[in-house]
């Protein structure tokens, strides 16, 4: 009995270790940030808002990253910032993914005039620079977090739609899809049962790239002063502050900067892992390089 159980665990470990390297590294890199975002109060040594000590203290045992311009603990602020940044970017990426995938798959599968109209609309949206369009939407509809999420989702949806549309186009002429159509299946059924599952490998790659873009866009917006409002910390607004005090405290921005880069990098690694795992048998994975970013 014991041996069988062990071998099951061993098999599970073997399965996990057998995944592509980038996928493993990516998940390992992302996981701590997700934990920090979920439970900042457990890991942060101090309050992110409390003024504890002198400003611009260098890193020490008590303040691992030092203190900021009014003497708050930088490490705690970086940890609490993870919550806002990751929540915004993950929700925006999820929305863009679902919306873009639906629009794209149906448009690509149905084709014809609908496809032309959809793709021209996508062209129009893609003509706006991402950050500028997001800025425009946020200033008009307010600075609330949900407006931010919607704005980021909206600027990323068109490229996701264009990408998944390619998948729909490729799959519509596959034998099993045609067979299903001939036997009278509805469009919704075919997209749900055949097109979506078969596009999933490429869509997962796209989702990773999308998530990376989302964290870069959301931190850019908070850098520009449109994300979390002070005194609440976000990686973007901390980096903004870091820039103003670059002569007094050159290392101020290292924490938030490394965090944004690592989260975005983790997503890219996960995407690369999926790419290797699933192979490029559809001939369309390569297009993910074109997914919008900053």
């Amino acid at each position, binding site marked *: 009995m014991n041996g069988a159980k062990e071998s099951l665990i061993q098999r599970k470990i073997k399965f996990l270790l057998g995944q592509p390297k980038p996928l493993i590294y990516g998940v390992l890199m992302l996981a701590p940030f997700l934990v920090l975002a979920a439970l900042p109060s457990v890991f942060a040594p101090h309050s992110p808002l409390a003024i504890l000590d002198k400003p611009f203290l260098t890193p020490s045992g008590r303040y691992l990253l030092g203190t900021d311009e009014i003497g708050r603990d930088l490490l705690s602020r970086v940890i609490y910032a993870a919550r806002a940044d990751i929540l915004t970017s993950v929700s925006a990426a999820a929305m863009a993914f679902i919306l873009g995938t639906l629009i794209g798959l149906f448009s690509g599968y149905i084709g014809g005039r609908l496809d032309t109209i959809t793709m021209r609309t996508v062209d129009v*949206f893609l003509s*706006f620079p991402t950050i500028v369009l997001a800025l425009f939407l946020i200033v008009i509809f307010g600075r609330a977090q949900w407006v931010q999420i919607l704005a980021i989702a909206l600027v990323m949806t068109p490229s996701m739609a264009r990408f998944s549309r390619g998948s729909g186009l490729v799959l519509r002429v596959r034998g099993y899809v045609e067979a299903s159509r001939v036997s009278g299946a509805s469009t919704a059924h075919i997209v749900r049962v055949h097109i979506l599952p078969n596009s999933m490998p490429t869509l997962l790659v796209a989702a990773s790239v999308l998530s990376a873009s989302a964290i870069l866009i959301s931190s*850019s917006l908070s850098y520009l002063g*449109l994300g979390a409002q002070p005194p609440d910390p976000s990686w973007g607004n901390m980096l903004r502050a870091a*820039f103003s005090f670059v002569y007094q405290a050159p290392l101020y921005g290292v924490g938030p900067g490394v965090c944004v880069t690592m989260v*975005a990098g983790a997503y890219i690694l996960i995407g690369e892992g999926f790419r290797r795992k699933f192979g490029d048998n559809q001939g369309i994975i390569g297009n993910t390089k074109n997914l919008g970013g900053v």
Partner: protein
Amino acid sequence: MGMNSPTRSWRIHPHQIAMAKSLLGRFAQLLFVMLAVSLLTFLILSATPGNIVDARIGPLPNFSPEERERIVESLTKQLGLDKPLWQQYFLWLKQVLQGDFGFTYQGLKVTDLIGSRLWPTIELGFLSVVTGVLGSLMVSLLAFRTRFRAVRGAVQGSMTLLLVMPAFWLGLILVIVGASKLNWLPAAGYVEFSEDKWEHIRFLILPVLTLALPQIALFFRYLYSGLRDAENSAFVTASRARGISERAVVYRHILPNAALPTITVIGLVAGSLISGLVIVETVFSWPGLGALIVKSVEVKDYNTVAAAVLLTAFSYVVVAFIVDIIYQLVDPRTRRKS
């Protein structure tokens, strides 16, 4: 069609007609997209909370409430705000086409303000693309031609890192190294070229690098995989078999073929550069269009934002169009296909 004008015979080749047709088609598409972009901008603009008249005339602090009332009334009529939305759109479009974007928050003409910010942005954007192209060419060839795996790995690793680094973090690193630690360069600011050209250049270096480094990384991805693909094609094997020197094979056969797909990417980046410029100009206090957009958004100067958004979207569409034409001219295969 200037490529091979009919000097040999007066007949126009079928492929030239096909190309003209496809160009015309692309041009019609361009006009359509531009029209739709303007419509979308107008719709977002008219969704602004508060009166659009206020947005157009600014706060006008010099007027008494009665006078203001009168001005608002006459402007409402003049702008056709009592008319249905679609008529308002055409009125707005007519003014925009005549170059009238109304006034800014402080009562300046929007077109004047944007005009004064255009040159620094164009300078920064253009130099960054040039640096990006040259840099990626050097880096790709280094990774492609080197005998050492470690060099190739180091290049690939650093390129991937640059790709995921947000511009404001990269900019901060460059400032920490170049300005605060080594004291070589100024951290942020701007000096007119006419005032002091060397200072002007010194202020340019860090923003240009911050914009160019991610571009180098992006172009590298395409160029390097293009080089690898081209190396495996039959004409390269054939050239090598004929005893052509390795140098000539790389520069005359592999590189031109690898560069083709990269042209499209360069065009796309050049068009969407404004997103990067928005960040980098804000980071380095560069007085360009990108910083203007951020500032106008902060003070809710809708007219300026709308004008800037339209301008950047148009330039993106036009650049994409031009890149398309260049691609068709450069690559004989796309010509034959169409």
